[in-house]
């Protein structure tokens, strides 16, 4: 346990020093949210209706771009080999790395979401709905993305391939996330139904993705 706690602290320290991980993700999130009204037009009613969807897609793409940093720097300087050979099970190592990664890249997105939602004219219940759905849904994105990151860690230009591998599997999280966000502002679907399914997706991916990612790291790295 001490080893895992030390690993968690190391990840946080590295993310702060190597600079920019969390902040760049939020900036990219902001840029995406800014681009959309340029493309769609400033009609506030339309933006309010599709606001939760835009926030979710932007969060997904920001997470995807940030996933590169999950294993790549460790692979390059050899610490990934040390982690693989250590006594601590590789699955737990992956779990801790992903949790730290979510704390650094996913959590800032969740905290920034209400502010950016206001820019998209998302108000009141819908705003809290989309923030809550992002809070429980971004771990699913990080953990599912970790599988893709582990599969492509030893490739030199694996960024686009990782996106191709990861995106089809994040579709359920996207569907239920937007459904929960829209349900928060009323309608026929109760908020809890998609919200609890989203929680289940996150918990399932937290439990299962480390096994797949660890297997991928062992076979590829």
């Amino acid at each position, binding site marked *: 346990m001490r080893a895992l706690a030390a690993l968690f602290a190391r990840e946080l320290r590295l993310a702060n020093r190597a600079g920019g991980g969390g902040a760049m993700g939020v900036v990219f999130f902001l840029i995406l949210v800014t681009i959309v009204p340029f493309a769609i037009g400033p009609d506030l009613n339309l933006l309010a209706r599709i606001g939760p969807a835009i926030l979710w897609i932007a969060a997904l793409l920001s997470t995807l771009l940030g996933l590169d940093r999950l294993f790549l720097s460790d692979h390059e300087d050899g610490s990934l080999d040390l982690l693989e050979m250590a006594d601590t099970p590789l699955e737990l190592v992956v779990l801790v790395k992903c949790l730290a990664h979510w704390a650094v890249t996913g959590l800032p997105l969740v905290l920034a979401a209400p502010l950016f939602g206001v820019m998209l004219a998302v108000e009141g219940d819908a705003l809290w709905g989309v923030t809550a759905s992002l809070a429980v849904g971004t771990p699913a994105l990080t953990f599912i993305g970790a*599988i893709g990151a582990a599969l492509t860690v030893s*490739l030199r230009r694996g960024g686009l*391939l990782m996106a191709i*591998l990861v995106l*089809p*599997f994040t*579709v359920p999280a996207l569907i239920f996330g937007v459904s929960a966000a829209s349900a928060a502002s009323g309608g026929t679907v109760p908020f809890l139904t998609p919200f609890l399914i989203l929680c289940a997706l996150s918990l399932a991916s937290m439990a299962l993705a480390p096994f*797949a990612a660890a297997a991928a790291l062992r*076979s590829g790295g």
Partner: protein
Amino acid sequence: MLKYANPTFFLRLVGAVLPWLWGATILTLGVGLYMTFLIAPADYQQGETVRIMYIHVPAAWLSMFIYTVMTLSALGTLVWRHPLADASQQAAAPLGAGFTFICLVTGSLWGKPMWGTWWVWDARLTSVLVLFLIYLGLIALWNTIEEPLKAARAAAILTLVGVVNIPIIKFSVDWWNTLHQPASVLRMGGPAIHPTMLWPLLVMAVGASLLFVCLHLMAIRNEILRRRLRRLSYLAAEAADHVLEPRAEAGA
């Protein structure tokens, strides 16, 4: 299974069996197409357009069946390290993508006159599209990792992660309110389709499956030969190195 692990034995076996398999394929598909166009009745509502079903449904069945074949091969690679399992996976991926593509396109062509739209984002169509994307991702993974053994293990892991999509596709028409029609053949209570339409459908399905088996065996054979070629070119390069080395040492 271990007997077939020897590539030379496998190549000999395929060489002997393949002509018969092709004969059976052409015969079955011929009979199937004859039944499709000349024996099966036109639908009372859809008219002649229903004949697309005899291509669309076997292609759909095959797209899921091929993914299952790939999953079993993936288990062969990861659990038993069976040498031909790698080649089997790699050979099956483009075939699966092809059949899924045929399923999506014929479904689209059928949907336009029947539903009035080329595409709709309902559960069945969306999950089959996701299956297509998973196939494309696997092909991309195979093409990107150069070392065949590493590529096989990585693709095997991804295949096993993606197998969760297959039951979702099968039961999507039961779990969600979809435009796509519900299960008519493989369902509790037996097929809900009339025998005059069921038999051509089953014959076309068997024909398509035989087609897949022929193409799959040929592709595995090609993959074995390709890997032999790769190994031979490495050996040739090494031999060339040894010829040059002594001269380099004399010069340095």
